[in-house]
């Protein structure tokens, strides 16, 4: 399954990229979080799929745009 990943702020900095396409065998957000926690260690993040925040039970679909969002700092 292809996921279009987007990284922002301190996550883009930690991973040293802002976007990538991954062909991975992950079917829900819980697994995705587990996958990234290994790389991101103590960075808190939320997941948005196709511009909506989702929780860990969300089932991913092929071609989903999946964003890793570090803590917000607007305003």
């Amino acid at each position, binding site marked *: 399954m292809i996921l279009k990943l987007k990284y*922002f702020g301190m996550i883009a900095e930690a991973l040293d990229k802002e976007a990538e396409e991954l062909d991975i065998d992950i079917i829900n957000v819980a697994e995705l979080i587990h996958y990234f926690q290994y790389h991101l260690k103590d960075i808190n993040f939320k997941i948005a799929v196709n511009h909506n925040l989702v929780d860990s039970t969300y089932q991913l679909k092929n071609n989903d745009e999946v964003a890793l969002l570090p803590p917000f*700092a607007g305003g």
Partner: protein
Amino acid sequence: MTEKIKNVFVDGPITPEKIATSIAHHQVKTNIGAHDIFLGQVRADEIEGKMVQAIDYSSYEEMANKVFHEIRESAFTKFDLTCMHIYHSKGIVKAGEICLFVFTSSAHRKEAMDACRYLVEEIKEKAPVFGKEIFEDDTHQWKVNR
């Protein structure tokens, strides 16, 4: 969803002139009795002996504009408003410059003030906007809203 999604982001700081122009545009709306304006300004915080000289704002722009749109719609439902405007900076905003401009207008003061506060809190909590605090020595840290 009654209106088109607007672009909330402006490049760099929000100028006092932009705010004045926005106020002036409302003088034809003679059913307005009260405006409330919130402005976020970049603070020169001292963190471990180093001074913040600017914040470099980035965002997940498509999602952020959608979130701002939803926040606006929800405020129009909750409060009896005549007008509402939100602008947020992207890119570099220096200490002392304005990065957020929230503008609510109503027939009466309470609605304008309640709505403005609601919008500011919602924006801080829900908008996927990120801020890199740049120190004078060009090191940085990432801002986190509380």
